[in-house]
């Protein structure tokens, strides 16, 4: 069974169709990259998947259920949607303790994830004094708190320096090696190409293609993901290419 399943997902704001009849699945145990230009609908799609935004039509399911119906959401899917989701006057550790307390997760797990994201020593400091990269790491720690089988990461590399990107790549690979399902969006296509097994490309809220990374590059005669993306999205508004079932 697909871990994440979108079926006819649509979101309109007035006359603007931010997401337009989006249908695809994120298979279990794989790293799936979600690629699209600014305003293509990636974040809106992810927010609908997490129940933060209400779809105009269609469904977005995690493990066969809407997010709101998951019995233990944080233990099922860990999400990073925005690094600025912590009270600036609360310490990093306390910010995570709040989430842990609400989810019946023991406090020792807070220290584990702080250590995992490299914030063990900074955990006692106010979040307001954190750099963008540190807030991003803290948001990632929050996503990992429930030790979920599935991770949804919206631009996890934002604000990270080269060392941080290297660390993030290693973390995602280690999570994938444990058999977790990872669905991540990024503008850093070269970075993404090194990490993902599968790629979903959208433009103007519509699906352009979903393919295994290897197949995408092979079918494009070794072109980079960036070159493939630019070529496909130029076609996207008038000629969406549905290749999800391609061998």
């Amino acid at each position, binding site marked *: 069974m697909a871990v994440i399943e979108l079926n006819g997902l649509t979101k309109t704001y007035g006359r603007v169709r931010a997401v337009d009849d989006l249908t695809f699945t994120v298979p279990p145990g794989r790293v799936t990259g979600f690629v699209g230009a600014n305003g293509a609908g990636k974040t809106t799609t992810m927010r609908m998947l997490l129940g933060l935004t209400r779809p105009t039509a269609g469904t977005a399911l995690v493990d066969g259920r809407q997010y709101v119906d998951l019995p233990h959401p944080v233990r099922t899917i860990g999400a990073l949607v925005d690094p600025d989701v912590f*009270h600036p006057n609360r310490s990093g550790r*306390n910010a995570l303790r709040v989430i842990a307390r609400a989810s019946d997760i023991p406090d020792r797990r807070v220290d584990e994830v702080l250590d995992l994201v490299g914030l063990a020593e900074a955990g006692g400091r106010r979040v307001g004094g954190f750099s963008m990269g540190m807030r991003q790491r803290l948001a990632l720690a929050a996503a990992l708190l429930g030790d979920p089988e599935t991770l949804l990461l919206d631009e996890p590399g934002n604000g990270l320096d080269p060392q941080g990107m290297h660390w993030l790549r290693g973390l995602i690979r280690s999570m994938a090696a444990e058999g977790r399902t990872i669905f991540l969006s990024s503008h850093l296509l070269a970075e993404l190409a090194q990490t993902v097994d599968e790629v979903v490309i959208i433009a103007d809220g519509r699906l352009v293609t979903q393919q295994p990374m290897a197949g995408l590059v092979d079918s494009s005669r070794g072109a980079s993901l960036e070159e493939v993306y630019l070529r496909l999205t130029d076609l996207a508004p008038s000629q969406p290419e549905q290749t999800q079932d391609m061998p």
Partner: protein
Amino acid sequence: MKSLVSAELLKLRTTASLWVAAGVVVAMSLAVPVVLVLSPSGVDIPEITPAALAELMRAPASVAGGAVLLVGLLAAAGEFRHHTVLTTRLVEPRSGRVLGAKLVAIALVGLALGLLAELVSGVAGAVVLSADGVDLEPLSHGVPRVAVTVPLLVALHGLVGVAVGALVRSTAGAVGATLVWVFVVEGVLPVVTRSPWMVHWLPGGTVHQILAAETPAGQLTPVAAGALLLGYVAALVTATAVLDSRREL
């Protein structure tokens, strides 16, 4: 639900507003008895009787209520200001349960600060009155009623703060709306409409009537005023819950 309430209490404990409010409540609870002690002789102060203890214990109700209202308001509207509402909703996607947990948490905080105010003002008042040679009669003159009523009223103020904060979703907007209500709707409106009776039926007026030692003609009894205030709070909380469930983040 217990976990959510526990998390909301932890949120309150790990921000400054609760501790500032607690400090203000303690300071104001001490202030009135201390002023009484420090008042120079010759100042026009009514004769002090055993009934003064109840008056001293009524005194911090407004400040404690206002402080907890502000704490509740910041706790609810602050979630939107700092975007923490996103993590809150990822943990518990059902808005009604989140609002319920916030209301329970602020009610518990309100009860605790209300009891603290009564304890401080009661003990300080007793010391001051004893030193002045006044007989203490802690079970008379409405003292037990005040000691129970003030914490309940402070808790209700907290519920109002959370409801307004969740409704307005902006700390500045929620504070502004509260001030407009207190000073314009409750303060000016009865005057400009030449309807002084209106004061007794508005929420602020019900609080005064609940705490009043006596019920003058034309005013509500403490029980009737309490029922009316509960109705106002229930209506506000219900409206917030309904709107909150329909709105997106």
